[in-house]
């Protein structure tokens, strides 16, 4: 089950490409793609470094003008979406 404490990783078949401050994630198996705004792009970068959703949320509060509880909920929603599209998996 996905929680704030969950650590996630990008699936081997997914490719992350930075485009300025944004990013796009492409699944090379299915052709599914996902656009990410600067917060989402940073989320993915921090996930790659092994951070949990909660740790990412804390880090993003320092980098962006966002509230921790709000950003944590947004990240959970994004993570669920990306999990269901096969772009992420629970570590």
């Amino acid at each position: 089950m996905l929680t704030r404490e969950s650590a996630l990783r990008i699936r081997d078949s997914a490719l992350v490409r930075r485009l300025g401050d944004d990013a796009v994630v492409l699944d090379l198996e299915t052709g599914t793609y996902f656009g990410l705004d600067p917060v989402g792009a940073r989320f993915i970068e921090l996930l790659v470094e092994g951070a949990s959703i909660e740790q990412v949320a804390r880090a993003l509060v320092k980098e962006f003008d966002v509230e921790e509880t709000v950003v944590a909920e947004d990240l959970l929603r994004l993570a669920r979406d990306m999990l269901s599209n096969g772009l992420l998996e629970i570590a």
Partner: protein
Amino acid sequence: MGAHFYTLAGRTIVCDRSLPLLAGAALGRAGERGAITIRFGSGSGAVPHPPSWFHSWLRPGDSGETWLRFAEVEQGFLLDAPEQAQFAVSLTGDDIACFPSPAIAESTLHHLLLDHVLPLALGIMGDVVLHASGVALHGRSIALVGPSGRGKSTLAAHLGTRGAEILTDDCLVLRELDGKWYALPYYQGLRLWPESLQIVLPGTFERIKVSGGSDKECVLRHPAITFRREPARLGMIALLQEERPDVRAIALSALSHRDALMSVLPLMFFFEVRTRLALRNQFERLCRLVEVVPVCLFDFPRQFEALPNVGAAVVRAAPTNHRTGRALCADA
């Protein structure tokens, strides 16, 4: 039967049948690197039988009928237009075998080959191929991108009557060279609905029917239209927005790289999604394209009487050597 040589999008096409729409192209040369060979076969025995189809396109409208479906076969891909023709495309995209049904109209066969199969083959070969019209103004090209029915060809034809050179009507081939992107000329023809023809290109001129099931006609020559034979550096990509009755104003707005990529990706001719390396390479090419070339959303009223103003907005936004398209997109 002798071979016919053509040039299409900068590549030599070698075909064992005459392809009249390519007749105006410069003569290609045999044995050139990057050439595409097209062979016509007969009899269904030679056509590979795929276990399943991984993708299909439906006919426009509500019929739900399959227009073209795709399968992987041992040596590449099979494209099937049910009851019309089948096309076996090699893994490298440079060899196409055509198997037309006896009943298919020649115009429909050529339409399938030139407007669907060849663009996909060019995508396999590494070109970025967009569902777009292309025009050149002051030596720089503009891509008018959008799905069918967005008014690409009508706008391109109008711009043609105002001095722009036509690169293509529906299939824009883009190639990267030293970090710059170039639009290559496709075949010489502008496909328009009768009403557009009557208003935008009145008079008598050489034209043919597009395919058996369509009222569209393909303009091959017109005194007001110049078809460009040379590549032109790509200056701007304009994404034609969906027609909406409430749109009264003409608006061009710049897109971020991310939104540009997300918008252009579905309008690319590319079906080799099952080969990871090919998909990765094509995705990376498209990323580089939207990083270099400005992409704008283009919203405009679709009434014919608005065309002069719509065309003028494109001309104003067109980048020249002294101005960048991105700056103009933001201001338009």
